[in-house]
């Protein structure tokens, strides 16, 4: 890690470690939440790049019908790993583990999270899980080819290394639980004096809601995957239909977690956007309470709708009715958020810096993801669209187009705070434009071909879908070009010692902008006392009136 050239009388967290070790040891044994956040950032990005490469190869294979560059078996393994890595190693930990870890304590005015050693332990679990997932590729038998859903009985029958993949997901789930547990307790116990629940930044609200889902839903997937492992290992009859088991029960259990997991992914990104928009519009957020409560509402309703992933399995009519009905309810709080964000731009004083641009892309793409979600929430339409590339496009719009772009927004927003330097804004703007165009070119055609009947997870396809696949693959190249520019720009910004970032480059008013960039080891010398709400920009308004 390069040390920072910023001249301050005080050492920042890069220069001062929490333990007696120097060099790598000071990082691997650190209990400082900021260093752990940085550890997460780099390990997560590594996994992200790996999974992007897999995605790129998958798209390349699909550029034309028939075999292009790989065998069907390889293809099946690649999309499985792409899913496992992206979901468990990038999107779920992305905002909470990286930016939550780094920013949560600072934003609530604390010196660290409440259980710093547990925090480091979570990171080790994350790394262990990630390594198992990646190493399973190279074991004899090859990596799992089941899809990230591990549906039984295929996951019991296949000869590939399913158990390592299941174990990886189990360990990663455990890591996620411990992070959630840490955050809830930290938020309850360590808020600075005066920071009541309704003076908390909205990012913290979203992390709080997320953490509850992490704690209460993740164990279900843990036990379910464990049961499949046990079934494979010992031949115990649990889900295997040949032994009387019920594959649909597996799907219920899987989605009891995995649907709420969608909210684990999206909620922090929503919180992120709620942070960014007021800062760049220099005005208070529109409808703070509604945004805060809609996070909780999403967490609650999100746990009631899992079986809308299963409308074609032959469930009872009652279940079909109730799950479809409630699915529409979960879209209400999301809609409320979108309307409030757009209203926050109204009469602001807007500076279209890279973080805001990414946030606007988020809103646009999240809207598309949400609307297509409505389409597949409609029962009769769902029957047709289930398991087609329409679904693939829908969830990529939500997971990548929204959460992924939320992560990018967070990177550009907090970059100067984390590293104390600045990236090149002009290049960042270009990267934003290219990634946004690339993303939409990549995934939008999938909606059309999905409706025309292109099933998902297909190695080969009928000639009539060729054009859409071709456009989509070209989109993937544009997207990757944008990502390369973005990462290169950020890495260059990190190494750049000239462009020292000020304490508060964007004019934010939450607590993280009141500590130096990068923050010192214990964040605050004195715990601040909070007296105003998190988005109090009245000083800009007042200053404007005075000059008049």
């Amino acid at each position, binding site marked *: 890690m390069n040390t920072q050239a910023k001249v301050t009388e005080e050492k920042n967290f890069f220069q001062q470690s929490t333990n007696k070790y120097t060099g790598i040891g000071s990082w691997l044994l650190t209990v400082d939440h900021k260093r752990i956040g940085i550890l997460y950032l780099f390990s997560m990005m590594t996994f992200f790049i790996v999974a992007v490469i897999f995605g790129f190869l998958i798209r390349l294979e699909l550029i034309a019908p028939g075999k292009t560059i790989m065998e069907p078996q390889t293809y099946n393994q690649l999309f499985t790993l792409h899913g496992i890595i992206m979901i468990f190693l990038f999107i779920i930990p992305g905002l909470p583990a990286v930016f939550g870890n780094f920013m949560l304590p600072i934003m609530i005015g604390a010196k660290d999270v409440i259980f710093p050693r547990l925090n480091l332990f979570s990171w080790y679990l994350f790394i262990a899980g990630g390594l198992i997932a990646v190493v399973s590729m190279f074991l004899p038998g090859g990596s799992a080819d089941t899809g990230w859903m591990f549906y039984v009985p295929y996951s019991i029958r296949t000869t590939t290394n399913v158990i390592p993949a299941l174990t990886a997901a189990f360990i990663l789930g455990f890591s996620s639980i411990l992070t959630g547990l840490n955050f809830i307790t930290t938020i309850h116990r360590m808020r600075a*004096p005066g*920071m009541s629940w309704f003076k908390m930044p909205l990012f913290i609200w979203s992390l709080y809601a997320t953490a509850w889902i992490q704690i209460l839903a993740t164990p279900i997937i843990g036990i379910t995957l464990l049961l499949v492992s046990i079934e494979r290992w010992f031949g115990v009859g649990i889900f295997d239909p040949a032994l009387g088991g019920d594959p649909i029960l597996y799907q219920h259990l899987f989605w009891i977690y995995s649907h709420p997991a969608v909210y684990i992914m999206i909620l922090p990104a929503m919180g992120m956007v709620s942070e960014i928009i007021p800062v760049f519009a220099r005005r208070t957020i529109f409808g703070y309470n509604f945004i805060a409560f809609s996070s909780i509402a999403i967490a609650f309703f999100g746990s*009631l709708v899992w*079986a809308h992933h299963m409308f074609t399995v032959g469930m*009872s*009519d*009652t*279940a079909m009715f109730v799950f479809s009905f409630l699915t529409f309810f979960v879209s209400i709080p999301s809609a409320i958020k979108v309307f409030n964000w757009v209203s926050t731009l109204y009469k602001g004083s807007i500076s279209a810096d890279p973080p805001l641009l990414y946030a606007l892309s988020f809103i646009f793409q999240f809207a598309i993801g949400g609307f297509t979600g409505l389409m597949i929430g409609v029962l009769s339409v769902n029957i047709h669209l289930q398991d087609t590339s329409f679904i693939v496009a829908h969830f990529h719009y939500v997971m990548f187009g929204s959460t992924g772009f939320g992560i990018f927004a967070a990177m550009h927003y907090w970059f100067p705070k984390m590293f104390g330097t600045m990236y090149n804004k002009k290049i960042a703007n270009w990267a934003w434009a290219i990634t946004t165009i690339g993303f939409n070119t990549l995934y939008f055609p999938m909606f059309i071909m999905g409706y025309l009947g292109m099933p998902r997870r297909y190695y080969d396809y009928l000639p009539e879908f060729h054009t859409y696949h071709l456009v989509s693959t070209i989109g993937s190249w544009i997207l990757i070009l944008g990502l390369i520019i973005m990462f290169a720009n950020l890495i260059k910004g990190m190494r750049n010692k000239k462009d020292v970032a000020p304490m508060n480059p964007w004019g934010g008013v939450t607590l993280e902008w009141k500590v130096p960039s990068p923050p010192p080891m214990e964040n605050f010398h004195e715990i601040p006392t909070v007296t105003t709400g998190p988005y109090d920009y009245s000083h800009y308004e007042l200053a404007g009136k005075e000059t008049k």
Partner: protein
Amino acid sequence: MTNSEQHTEHSEHHTEHKHIVEYGKYLFIWLGLLALTGITVSAAGINLGNWTIVLALVIASVKSLLVLSIFMHLKFEDKVFKIFVWVAMLTFAIFIFFTFLDYSFIR
């Protein structure tokens, strides 16, 4: 401190509770638990049809309530702990209830 809710939560930092439960109380609860176990075992012998399982679960719930509130000191903890436990129970209830929306009504 500007906020009263904040105040109560944080004052806990310093005046850490030290509620001591006497040995006798534990012994009493233990006897109760044994008695309930006895009831559930003997009730299992009587044929009550579908009510057997309901009775068994009700007794088990009473037992766990005793363990939770006395052995695990939930009775003496802050309100927020009790809310947490209810949230967890509610979540599990939702999971099982909604799963049975499928299984109870299957054609």
